[in-house]
């Protein structure tokens, strides 16, 4: 299995889609930081007036909103830029879908399965690769946010314990989401379905729709156990053992989707 992992890491290092998606996430971070800077800092507001984005009167009316922004710290800003809305999960899902489906599209899967008959190895290798990529992306994006904040002095720094706590569960939840995309790709072998699944599940469209339908029957409580809900509303700081539930949810989904993917792959002919 570690041979497969080595192979996957070699390939992902050369995968253009990883760099393209990372560049998109960085660009959005720059854009968000610039907007925060314009609204949050006195220099930014003056620049916005000079650029004609709003007048001095608008600026006076914005004071309330500015107060809201002033309650935000670096972790809050990081979450708001891409993590909470599902942008990050969708982007990660798209990269994973392109990565996994390439095995089927080119037929290299035949070489892999001939050499590694235990198909669980294939799925676990993909999951580990997704986990490693996810870790690097989260750390690099947060580091970039920190760098932007250091340059423009927008929001105060969060306590490092809270940052580490958030990063840990965000990694678990987003890796569990990646395992869902892996399962979709293995079952359908379609890059279109993989990307569609990444967008629909990652952005919470499916959960929101189902939540709306089930709430009509007063059955909406299940949503708080979904990956999307936990990614969006999960705790930013550790306040007690109850907050550890999020890890359990993440690992349960990860194991479930990995088992489904492995089972389906075992039953399929290549």
């Amino acid at each position: 299995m570690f041979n497969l992992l080595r192979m996957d890491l070699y390939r992902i290092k050369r995968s253009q889609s990883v760099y393209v998606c990372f560049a998109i996430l960085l660009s959005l971070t720059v854009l968000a930081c610039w907007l925060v800077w314009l609204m949050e800092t006195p220099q930014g507001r003056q620049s916005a007036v000079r650029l004609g984005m709003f007048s001095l009167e608008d600026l006076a009316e914005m004071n309330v909103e500015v107060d809201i922004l002033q309650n935000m710290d670096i972790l809050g800003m990081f979450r708001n830029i891409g993590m909470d809305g599902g942008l990050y999960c969708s982007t990660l899902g798209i990269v994973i879908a392109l990565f996994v489906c390439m095995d089927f599209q080119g037929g290299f899967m035949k070489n892999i399965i001939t050499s590694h008959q235990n198909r669980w190895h294939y799925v676990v290798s993909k999951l580990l690769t997704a986990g490693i990529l996810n870790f690097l992306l989260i750390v690099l994006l947060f580091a970039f946010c920190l760098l932007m904040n250091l340059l423009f002095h927008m929001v105060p720094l969060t306590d490092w314990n809270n940052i580490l706590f958030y990063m840990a569960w965000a990694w678990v939840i987003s890796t569990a989401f990646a395992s869902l995309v892996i399962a979709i790709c293995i079952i359908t072998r379609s890059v279109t379905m993989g990307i569609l699944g990444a967008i629909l599940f990652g952005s919470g469209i499916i959960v929101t729709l189902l939540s709306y339908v089930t709430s009509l029957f007063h059955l909406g409580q299940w949503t708080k156990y979904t990956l999307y809900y936990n990614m969006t509303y999960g705790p930013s700081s550790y306040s007690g053992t109850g907050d550890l539930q999020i890890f359990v949810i993440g690992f349960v989904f990860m194991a479930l989707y990995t088992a489904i993917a492995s089972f389906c792959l075992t039953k399929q002919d290549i």
Partner: protein
Amino acid sequence: MSESQKKYAVETMALTKKFKDKAAVNQLNMKVEEGAIYGFIGRNGAGKSTTLKMLCGLAGATSGEIRLYGKPLHTPYMSQRIGSLIESAGLYPNMSARQNMIMKAKCLGLTDNGANSPENTIDKLLSVTGLSNTGNKKAGFFSMGMKQRLGIALALLGNPDLLILDEPINGLDPEGIHEIRQLLLRLNEEGKTLIISSHILGELSRISTHYGIIKDGMLVEQISQENLEQKCKSYFQIEVDDTKHALPLITEHAPDIRTEVYDNHTLRLYDLKEGAWLNQLLVEHHIQVYSSGFHHMDLEEYFLNKMDGTAPAQNNANRTDTVLE
């Protein structure tokens, strides 16, 4: 060599693969000796690729058993003894030939081992398959022949003992076919066992040592090259008005000659050096002779005979055993 002394690279026991209710492969008992070049022949949809996929572990069997080198297919590390090219070359289209080879080397866990480092092996295989000069060209832009060559190079990586090649010369030009033929023969000389499926029977007959003919998922016949040659050997074919009268007459005058009733009007006589006397004999006994002459069957004709179900009904006394030897 007796049956019990033979070592088999591949043995299947009642191997069956069903898609819903239809059996693509039905009770297949295949035996491939170690060191053989096994030509696997059959029409489109006969079950060749499905069988080869099952041998590689790409498709699961509905029932039956596969043994490679005497051990079950799913024995640990057994799969690493197989190199395969099934249907089309499996490759990453966005990578060069070399990068595809590196991927497979990593997949197999090939490690640096002095002169036999993966890099050296990859260079050698790319050279052998004529892909040394492809540089950074992406495999997705390769011609069909180049893709096949890369598929063969990928199959050879890891120095497998058993090579399973499904239509390996598809898309190759005559020069390429010659090169691949020489390569396969060389690999066989090195002791590798090859299972090759191809529709180009002429090409297959130039290298195969054994054949397996599959029809509607069932193995119709397994035959060695020697036995095939024996069966396809020149024969004297004579068309008469009635074989019922002609056959006893011939058997009486030439008891050592192997005879075969092909149909109601046709007789085939083997080991006959010249046929003029036979014509004369039949005419003298008032048997009408419509035509006569020497024939030689090639693999294609033999295969077509098998497929059409018009395989010769041989004289029981002189019947040749068709089981693989």
